């Protein structure tokens, strides 16, 4: 019963998963512009800054990421950056999502999976 509740709690949406991965990928450079650009170039579909932030806010509410305000540059019109970091809970949720996929995939016959090059 307890574990079931935990599973429901750590559920990640697809976009949430991608955003978490992007933050980990960017390390110290994880702020709005870079996160959006990484997501757009890797998913190859348009990503709006608004959807990035609404997702980040949701992740922060769940305690999966934390954020702090950083420096401001001239080309930003003197406005501060907001940097993000993945918290323990976020890493756990990400691991859970990835291992779920692995488990499912191990049950699929290999010729049904698209070839990985």
């Amino acid at each position, binding site marked *: 019963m307890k574990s079931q509740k935990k599973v429901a709690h750590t559920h990640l949406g697809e976009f949430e998963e991608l955003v978490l991965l992007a933050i980990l990928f960017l390390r110290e450079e994880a702020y709005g512009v870079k996160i959006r650009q990484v997501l757009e170039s890797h998913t190859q579909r348009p990503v709006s800054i*608004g959807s990035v*932030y609404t997702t980040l806010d949701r992740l922060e509410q769940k305690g999966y990421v934390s954020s702090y305000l950083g420096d401001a540059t001239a080309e930003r019109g003197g406005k501060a950056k*907001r940097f993000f970091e993945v918290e323990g809970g976020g890493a756990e949720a990400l691991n859970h999502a990835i291992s779920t996929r692995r488990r499912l995939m191990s049950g699929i016959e290999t010729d049904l999976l698209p070839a990985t090059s």
Partner: protein
Amino acid sequence: MNLMKDIRKFDGAFQEVHGERINAAAALSIGSRLREIRLQRGISLREIANETRIGIHSLEAIESGNFHQVPQGVYLRSFIRKYARCLQIDHEVEGFLQSLYSDGSGAIGMLHVSDVHYDKDKSVSIKPVTPRLAEYILYLFLTKAERIYLIGDLNEEYYEVAHKFGPNRAKLWFYKQVLSSLTPLASRSLRRLKVIVSLAELFRRLFS
């Protein structure tokens, strides 16, 4: 280009601007220089007007050297300085301003000197002038904190796009970003509204 001819024609001539005598050649030099730099960088008068808060009519008058058409003569120099600062050529224009009230035989020489070269790297090094309407629409859906970092992000990328593809593409990019951001932002506000409504409903049931 017959600009030089025009300036020569005006050399030593004066314009009456709100009771002050202004060197007409210097006026035309300043105006045409500002216009030249602006066009070189593909910036519209509207953008300059948004940035400096100076009316387009006044900006046009400054560019054409018709300083008497600029309202409120006391502000003339401050208008010119603001415009020049916006294009980051204020150091250059300062020299012109000096000759504006002199007998002004130096104005022609100054145009030559400043015309020789212009640093190409500076071609888009203007503060981001993001489309105002789009930014305003976005403002309606943002929290106070988001108006800092989210708008900052948009500014930064707008600047990047403008640098690579020019101001028009950047504007298109900006509008696209704002419009596609509205759906997630608006549905967020809607969710908040739902929470309030359901709380109100709960209270109504509890106390009825």
